[in-house]
């Protein structure tokens, strides 16, 4: 059995991909739902990678990740309301998210980490969740806002099927942001230092890496990814820009991170896209699965994964710290 276990995961994934491709070729509705599902999945993937980044380095589950994403999305909205056009606002928001995320870690998490352990930090992230989500309501109020879309509401026709430009754009931007992050980690000195700090903090200190700074920067990068996820989400027709916008999406992103293996960014991406596509298809084709049941479905998925294979699809089977 052990000899075959290496093939289970690739086989499963391969099967899913084949299923999606064949179905899309058969039915244009299937194809459309797959693509818009992948667009959702791109959002889950971005936020999922943000969660994995922080978990990998600190073993902390950052419950505030969604709220931070919401906050940065509102910042983008505000910039656009003040007259900035879409893409300048987008990139300015990314910069603000980076700085904000780094400062947030410095002010709220660092003091707790000094004296506490993982669990106190997790509770602190819940505090940050309440604080940040509350700040959104405090600054901008609870009314639903309208976020201008990133792409014009056009359809792209491929092989006789019409896909939404917004959906394709979302998939593209999500993947692009993850790839850029990967390149940063792989090819830059500071990316290397961040990885070293995440994997072996003690050894990293000995070569002169300021490990706590690396963690703060990690939060900054995670906030940037969250901002991408948030801005793409707000542009999606099924999501409204309101203070609790990312609560549900956070759960799907957790499910993606767990399914992919909490320490694997690549896993979060693959799992995120898969979850997005599958949930959308389930919702369209299975009649008793209403939109409200999708969140409980994600919860059940997380539960099953953690019970059966806690390291997820791509994680290492040994758990570093309990």
């Amino acid at each position: 059995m052990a000899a075959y276990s290496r093939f289970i995961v690739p086989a499963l994934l391969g099967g899913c991909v084949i299923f999606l491709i064949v179905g899309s070729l058969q039915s244009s509705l299937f194809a459309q739902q797959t693509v818009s599902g992948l667009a959702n999945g791109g959002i889950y993937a971005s936020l999922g990678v943000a969660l994995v980044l922080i978990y990998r380095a600190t073993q902390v589950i950052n419950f505030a990740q969604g709220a931070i994403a919401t906050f940065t999305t509102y910042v983008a909205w505000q910039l656009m309301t003040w007259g900035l056009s879409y893409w300048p606002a987008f990139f300015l928001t990314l910069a603000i998210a980076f700085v904000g995320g780094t400062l947030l870690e410095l002010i709220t998490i660092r003091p707790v980490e000094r004296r506490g352990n993982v669990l106190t930090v997790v509770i602190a992230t819940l505090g940050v969740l309440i604080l940040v989500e509350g700040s959104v309501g405090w600054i901008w109020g609870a009314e639903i806002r309208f976020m201008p879309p990133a792409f014009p509401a056009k359809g792209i026709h491929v092989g006789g099927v019409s896909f939404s430009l917004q959906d394709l754009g979302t998939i593209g931007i999500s993947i692009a942001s993850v790839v850029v992050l990967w390149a940063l980690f792989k090819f830059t000195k500071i990316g290397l230092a961040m990885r070293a700090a995440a994997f072996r903090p003690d050894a990293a200190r000995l070569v002169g890496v300021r490990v706590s700074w690396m963690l703060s920067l990690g939060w900054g990068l995670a906030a940037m990814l969250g901002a991408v996820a948030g801005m793409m989400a707000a542009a999606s027709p099924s999501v409204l820009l309101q203070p609790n916008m990312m609560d549900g999406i956070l759960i799907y992103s957790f499910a993606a991170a767990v399914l992919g293996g909490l320490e694997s960014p690549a896993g979060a991406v693959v799992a995120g896209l898969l979850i997005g596509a599958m949930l959308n298809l389930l919702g369209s084709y299975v009649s008793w699965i209403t939109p409200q049941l999708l969140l409980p479905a994600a919860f059940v998925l997380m539960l099953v994964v953690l019970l059966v294979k806690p390291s997820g699809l791509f994680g290492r089977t040994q758990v570093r710290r309990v």
Partner: protein
Amino acid sequence: MKARALLIGIVALAVALMPFILSDYNRSQGAEVAVFAMAILGLNVVTGYTGQISIGHGAFMALGGYTTAILTHDHGWNDIATLPVALLVGFVAGVVVGVPALRFHGAYLALLTFAFALAVPQVAKNYSSFTGGTEGLALPTHTGMWLYGVAWGCTAAIYVVTVFLLHGRTGRAFRAARDSEVAAASSGVSLALYKTFAFGVSAAFAAVAGSIYVLINNFVNPDVFGLTLSLYILIGAVVGGLGSLWGILVGAAFVQLLPIGLTSSHVISAEGVPVLFGAIVIIVMALVPRGSAEVLRLAMGLPNRIRRSHDSSTPHSLEAR
């Protein structure tokens, strides 16, 4: 020991006499404090004493609340009669949740209960034929006095039960489970049983709290028991101090009364309350992970009655390094 009993007596007397000097509205506010006290007490049993963290207690409150609502609204039951049913439903649900919860530790359990807290209201919205969906169910009203009496009566009953549980063999088992799994297992304590039992009890308390909450507001819909409620229960537990019975009253009063006090005296707007609460949670975790009960305890020089002299009153998992 005597100072302790005296203090409890004074507090009990104060609570019992308070409604006579309060307005009807304030009495129902007082009843809501009791609701939080019960829920926080439930959370304490599981998180403070056995070290399993749960951010999903709002969901258990929802179960109790909907049980009461459906039984009174659709089947004409007497309100008080629904409370034992809610207790049972909560216990069963807690045990059902507690069994898989055994497999997870710390952050994973927090994650799952967090998702649980968000998932349950969605299920309630979905099966609207049972639950009245998003429009909810409306229930008959009660006087503030009645609510206050029922709420605090239940709280007192639950408190007494908890004290008995924690004093006896169950309590020792709880603390053993919390402090060292290996040691507990090797001393013959069936950890799985006690942990599951703790979850069941904890959920049962939350369910009763939910029932009374629904009776106070004479209304229920899925949003009432959303994520915010679970988080506020946790805030109350954290501020009050996990693993401490004193802190529960402090925490409950904090969560229920502080926002009202601040907004009605216009110190901050209603939207500013979560900002303040979030900041307070972070500050508490940074400075006093054991919560205000520890501070109070130290200030008054009183030992915590539940703690034996050689025990630690801090949940092992929250001990500062």
